[in-house]
């Protein structure tokens, strides 16, 4: 059965055979089993729906055989397709049993395969027709120099879901890198903690105390830096000032800052 076709797959024979009939085993040229099947089906030169599936199966199996003989490492999907086609072919050739079968009739499966090939072929043709259309910036050109005051279609915002996704992932990646890099890690004295710290020592702040003395002291190499302690303590103290729990004063810009608990009924002290 395969005799009629087999020579075409043979490389030595292929050289003597008419180019159009030669079917050279070149896996690189194919995307997958369906693409190979489509190429094979074309050699039958019939309407894809009237395709001889048995013949197609033979051709494909011969193709796989040849490819393997030539030491191509065949992808699993080629082999899966081969076994399925062999199975389909055997079912098509065997006399039909009337036994209640769970599977659909082989003819139906064959027709469906032909349909799939037809569909792929249609898409192939579509690619050809679409790409032969006049293409922007290759065949047709829009205004090279639109007027300075461009009319911007105002009801459109150019942002696709893809861009949104991409923007999200980029940032999360950045975030991951930031957190992963220990060298860049800056441990800060949290505002929360600063507030708690202040509330704790507030009762003791009866006198004007410099900010530096109020802020927790940096110890060892671990933990937040002294400037973080100072900055957070200042921020937290301003909140407490706003709440009316304490006062703050500074003689002039860059001068020492003093903090003090606000006494009940005590008038706001003027700056010295």
């Amino acid at each position: 059965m395969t005799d009629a076709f087999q020579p075409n797959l043979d490389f030595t024979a292929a050289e003597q055979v008419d180019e159009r009939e030669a079917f050279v085993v070149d896996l690189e040229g194919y995307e997958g089993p369906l693409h190979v099947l489509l190429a094979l089906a074309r050699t039958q030169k019939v309407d894809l729906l009237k395709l001889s599936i048995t013949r197609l199966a033979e051709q494909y199996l011969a193709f796989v055989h040849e490819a393997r003989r030539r030491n191509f490492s065949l992808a699993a999907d080629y082999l899966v397709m081969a076994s399925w086609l062999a199975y389909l072919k055997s079912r098509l050739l065997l006399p039909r049993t009337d036994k209640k079968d769970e599977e659909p009739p082989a003819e139906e499966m064959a027709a469906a395969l032909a349909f799939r090939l037809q569909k792929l072929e249609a898409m192939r043709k579509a690619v050809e027709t679409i790409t032969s259309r006049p293409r922007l910036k290759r065949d047709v050109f829009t205004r090279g120099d639109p007027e300075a005051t461009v009319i911007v279609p105002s009801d459109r915002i150019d942002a696709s879901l893809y861009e949104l996704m991409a923007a999200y992932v980029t940032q999360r990646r950045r975030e991951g890198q930031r957190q992963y890099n220990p060298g860049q890690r800056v441990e800060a004295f949290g505002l929360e903690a600063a507030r708690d710290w202040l509330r704790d020592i507030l009762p003791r702040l009866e006198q004007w105390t410099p900010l530096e003395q109020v802020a927790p002291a940096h110890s060892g190499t671990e933990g937040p830096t002294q400037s973080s302690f100072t900055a957070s303590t200042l921020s937290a103290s301003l909140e407490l000032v706003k709440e009316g729990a304490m006062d703050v004063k500074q003689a002039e810009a860059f001068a020492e800052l003093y903090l003090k608990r606000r006494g009940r009924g005590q008038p706001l002290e003027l700056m010295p």
Partner: protein
Amino acid sequence: MIQFAPDHGEIERRVEALLFAAAGPLSAAEIGRRLPEGADVGGAISALRERYQGRGVELECVADRWRFRTAADLGFLMTEEREEPRRLSKAALETLAIIAYHQPCTRAEIESVRGVSLSRGTLDLLLEMGFVKLKGRRRTPGRPVTYATADKFLEHFSLASLYDLPGVQEMKAAGLLDLSIPVGFEVPDPSRAGDDDDAPLLEGADDAPEFAQDFVAED
């Protein structure tokens, strides 16, 4: 400046000026918004289209919007303006075509038409180029995301709308754009085999290459 009740000719002039000045295609509504109430934008566009017919510059409809562009047969003159097109691989073009003709469709459906799994980079290139967009989710189990073409696809290939895709009516009539697989039809789909319990089958095939040869040998 004629501000009140401009006649047809004046409306046509204004539409012409707007389309010329615009950086991108404009819809009739977008044009109309800049014209006096009740202006016959459609009529003006038809008149302009006729006027520019066969000229070096033509008026065309892309993605339901209008734009002036150079005549297709004069592309060879624009050596300086031409941009080296980003070459799309065969796989990318096929994927684009499948999405264009079947939209909205899922990744699995694209893979099922092509019979191979989509390699990395194929879809994201199309997405990045703005030819394809995420459309929504299929209301089926797993709620897969669906893809559709974006306006830029139509603009790039000078298509007025999706109805103008070459051969779309014929394909539809022939039932070729149906994504539902015929009842009981199961071609092994390796692209999806990895995702479920078919995985052992694949491993088996890899480990035992004789597997297929056996069938061939028996022939």
